[in-house]
């Protein structure tokens, strides 16, 4: 088996769904479970799955945790298993990204305490979507068909150290007039993982390693990515937006 840096634990409906979505984005994964039947069903479907006893740290190390694996998904259907796996994996690798599923706010807190990087509550999100659908139907339709649909993408673009944008003020870039894009904000990893919103009123000085978060049509995004990579962007001299 080749070394993949993404593993999914739990071969239920959730695990399959995530594996499929990742495959669509070109990320290959292995699925692991301690349930023989589940693994068998996945193998029959042609997915890469294997049985592993996740309660045994040596077995976890054998499949790459603490060595080459960069992120794991804990998607067992029961919370204790997810919690146990999160704890074991965190103990093996302090930098591992652990994404876990939770079923309530309380279990989310437990998973975070156990060392999960990100806890996602599918029910919370679904409930929120249903509510949004009721409260703001047009908006949801727009977001569904644009953000999740084919037209518009959200992307992050890292600014290289040698870029000409290095040192420019975010508000002065005037990217909005050069590209059909909306800049949502920027993340300065030196300041933390918080997203600084472009319209917050505080202009941010860009430097190398900052990550721009933009929304727009796919073609425009790749144009911007190309421009940043080729370093052909010039910070506008006049202050861009009125």
């Amino acid at each position, binding site marked *: 088996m080749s070394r993949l840096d*993404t593993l999914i634990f739990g071969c239920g*409906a*959730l695990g399959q*769904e*995530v594996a499929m*979505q*990742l495959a*669509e*984005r070109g*990320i290959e994964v292995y699925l692991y479970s301690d349930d023989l039947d589940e693994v068998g069903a996945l193998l029959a479907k042609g997915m890469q799955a294997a049985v592993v006893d996740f309660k045994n740290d040596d077995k976890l190390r054998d499949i790459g945790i603490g060595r080459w694996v960069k992120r794991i998904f804990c998607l067992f259907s029961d919370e204790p298993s997810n919690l146990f796996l999160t704890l074991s994996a965190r103990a093996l690798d302090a930098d591992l*990204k652990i*994404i876990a*599923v939770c079923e309530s706010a309380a279990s989310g807190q437990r998973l975070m305490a156990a060392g999960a990087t990100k806890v*996602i509550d*599918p*029910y*919370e*999100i*679904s*409930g*929120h*979507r*249903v*509510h*949004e*659908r*009721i*409260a*703001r139907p*047009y*908006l949801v*339709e*727009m*977001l569904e*068909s*644009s*953000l*999740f649909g084919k*037209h*518009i993408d*959200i*992307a992050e673009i890292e600014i290289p150290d040698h870029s000409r944008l290095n040192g420019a003020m975010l508000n002065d870039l005037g990217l*909005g007039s050069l590209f*059909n*894009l*909306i800049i*949502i*904000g920027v*993340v300065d990893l030196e300041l933390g993982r918080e*997203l600084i*919103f472009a*319209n*917050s*009123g505080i202009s941010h000085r860009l430097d190398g390693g900052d*990550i721009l*978060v933009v929304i*727009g*049509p796919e073609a425009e995004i790749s144009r911007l990515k190309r421009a940043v990579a080729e370093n052909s962007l010039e910070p506008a001299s006049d202050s861009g*937006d*009125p």
Partner: protein
Amino acid sequence: MSFSRRVIKQCYAMQGSSRYTGVKQAVYNLLENPQAPIRPYFDIFMILLVLTTVWLLIYEVKNDLGTVGDLIEMVAVGIFIVEYLLRFWIFNDSHKVILERYERAEFINQPFDLWPALSHALLGKLKYVIRPLAIIDLLAIIPSYRPLRFLRIFLLFRLFKLFRYTRSISEFVKVLSEKRIELVTLFIFMAFITFTAATAIFFFEADQQDSQITGFFDSVYWALVTMSTVGYGDITPNTTEGRVITLVLIIAGLGVISFFTSIIVSAFGEKIHEIRAHRIYSEIERKRIDTLICGYGRVGQVVAERMAADRRSFVVVDPVEENVRIAKKKPGHLAVVGDGEDTELLLSLGIDKRIQRLLCLTGDDVVNVYITLTARQVNPDIEIISRANHRENVSKLYRAGASYCVTPYEVFGLIAAEYAGQPVAFEAVYGLLTGQSHEGIEAVRIKDECVLVGRSLESVDFTRRKLTPFGVIRERDSGSAEEHANYDLQGRRFFFNPGKSFILEKDDLLVLLGHEYSVVHFRDCLERGTL
């Protein structure tokens, strides 16, 4: 034959007249239809009227009524008579009975005979007259007629009229009537004991010197008073035999009383759910609730909580009593124990008329499909939002009639995959999507009289307001602004990132990206026209 022809013609005229049916429907709404909005007012009015006349009856015993009292009495009786006649009228449609007979005769080519048809129609009306509530109504009217003044005690029947107007009393009667068999058994047992004890006491005591029992009526009276444990003591046994009978009767009486109590208690114990459910039904009617949530699992809880925070009204249906108990504890939550598959229940919650939005959020796709299908059949206009727990069931739900499906696992997959690819961008989207950050996407409707109608986006200083125009959603019919890039949105156009030259029109939805306070402030400015 000409008379019968005329009757038939009249019947057809009634059948075809929309005014006749309209008036009849209005009267039905007033008197009988429990769903009609006017019904509670009518009921309260009638209750007050009945109580007033009964009070007059009490007052009259010792005082003179005077003209005002007489007038009130006359008006009340007049209203009662009109009510009685109207109920008599709307009980059934006599013209339909006659027409049915007539058409049947025509069909098999037999001569039509009016009299059997008429008598059949009259029989239908007679059925109304002999109904218990109709008899009560009649008895509440008759004694007001002078020559029948001696029947005045029947005026008390007006109190029984209250059955018609109050739901709780009629519920009480319904509960008791369901325990008919037990009550009849008890009554027979009681009659047997009373009769035996009365005979025995009469046998031993009636011929005694200075006995208090002078006739058989006295002994029956004594037996009942003793058995019920009331024991006035106005009649007491003097002989040893009589006292022994008393002892036996007292013990038997205790049995009867406890039997009676247990019947009542168990009847209400069994029915209490239904009575509570009825309460909730009437609350649903009163509050004009238009959203029904089937399934109070995790998703249902989140939706209910958000909706309660929005002060939207809704009712939760869940088969698990524990869930319903949790739901009821939260403010703004109405909940009923019941299965979503129970079509009767859904109908009594008004799914065919009042409910405009149904949320099927159970964890079982089979149940969700079933509810969706049932609801769509009884109500083609209802908005149904369904939860699909497996990807392959989405198409089934849409085929069953769902307007929108939410798939928790797919959403999870989408978000998890996005996180794996672009963790930073993901955090931003996640915050926007779950409403957990204060920064968000909001839509502002450009109203007809709004100052922005016909102006370009350039005229608003969005930067100063800390907002970013994300897009504009517009109804398709306006052909303008086609030069701006736009996307199809189920019959509407969505303009992403509209440029400064974009001209707003009325009814546009301006989608803004920004802090919630900024959006609120912007809305406020628009409302006041001080941009």
